[in-house]
């Protein structure tokens, strides 16, 4: 049975709340949906803008770094060489070894691209890690997946590669019943999924935490006002600390993605364990 009185009472409560100031809306997945930048019907959104700007910045940096390469490096060349050297000596040399040289350009590109896309999350005005949209990490993970399977199959042959992966020698026969499907599942299916999710959700969660502290502080300062405005110091202070923490996590995740890719390639290239 319809009771009109309830609706009216609810309406009054809503009006009373609106007079006190808007209620706080915690940030959620909805904050990652962006409308097209140039009106309806176009497709160009903010994450796309960040990708384009980031790619241009990376291309510009490496162009400057490689143009007029000198024995005594200038500033740009020094930056380019230290990033390249970090990937070569810090990641590839330890995991793949000498024959990993030819993968260094790919892995360096991946590292710089992911790091820049992540760091867009703390660059003022942009303030969105483009990698928090799952499509970008997914394609990067597919590239990594394609590369390690390709080099593995090229090295050992199609059957040899899967035999190497699924049947490491020196185990009791019964173990293989369990081990072979698990290894196949983990290498072919789980690896690209975890690569994707680890990067996406780290950026997603980090961005949510930053949103929560900053919007919470803004809510206390502007919507509540009075005594609570003083309390907004706490969330704002946390947002500054967490921004530095995010910068660390963003570079770390780029490192982890590339490190795991290098290890997968190393595993595919390795002879029998």
């Amino acid at each position, binding site marked *: 049975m319809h009771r009109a009185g309830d609706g009216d009472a609810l309406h009054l409560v809503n009006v009373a709340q609106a007079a006190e100031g808007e209620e706080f809306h915690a940030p959620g997945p909805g904050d990652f949906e962006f409308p097209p930048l140039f009106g309806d019907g176009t497709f160009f959104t903010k994450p796309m803008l960040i990708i384009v700007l980031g790619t241009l910045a990376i291309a510009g940096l490496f162009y400057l770094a490689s143009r007029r390469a000198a024995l005594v490096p200038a500033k740009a060349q020094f930056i380019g060489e230290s990033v390249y050297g970090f990937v070569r000596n*810090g*990641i590839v040399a*330890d*995991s793949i070894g000498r024959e990993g040289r030819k993968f260094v350009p790919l892995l360096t590109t991946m590292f710089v691209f992911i790091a820049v896309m992540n760091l867009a999350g703390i660059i003022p005005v942009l303030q969105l890690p483009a990698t928090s949209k799952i499509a970008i990490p997914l394609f990067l993970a597919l590239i990594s997946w394609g590369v390690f399977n390709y080099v593995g199959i090229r090295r050992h042959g199609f059957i040899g590669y899967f035999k190497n992966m699924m049947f490491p020698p020196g185990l009791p026969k019964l173990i293989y019943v369990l081990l072979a499907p698990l290894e196949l599942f983990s290498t072919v299916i789980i690896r690209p999924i975890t690569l994707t999710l680890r990067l996406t959700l*780290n950026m997603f*969660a980090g961005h949510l935490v930053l949103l929560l502290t900053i919007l919470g502080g803004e809510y206390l300062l502007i919507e509540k006002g009075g005594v609570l405005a003083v309390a907004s110091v706490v969330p704002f202070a946390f947002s500054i600390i967490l921004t530095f923490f995010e910068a660390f996590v963003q570079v770390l995740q780029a490192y*982890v993605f590339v*490190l795991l890719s290098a290890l997968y390639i190393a595993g595919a290239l390795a002879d029998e364990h």
Partner: protein
Amino acid sequence: MNGEINGSLNMIGYGLAAIGPGVGIGLIFAAYINGVARQPEARGVLQGIAILGFALAEALAIIGIGLAFVLG
């Protein structure tokens, strides 16, 4: 106002699910610090291994937060 709480129980589930990886990551870095304290020159080698272990343990927490949102 009668003490109503709105939200998704998934978040409590996620909090519980994060205990495991939290303890795991703590153990990994405890072992790393121990290793470096005993053998400071091994820091370079240990760092890569520690971060690899951290990434693998963290994947569980990350899958948890993904599911907390997806199933919400």
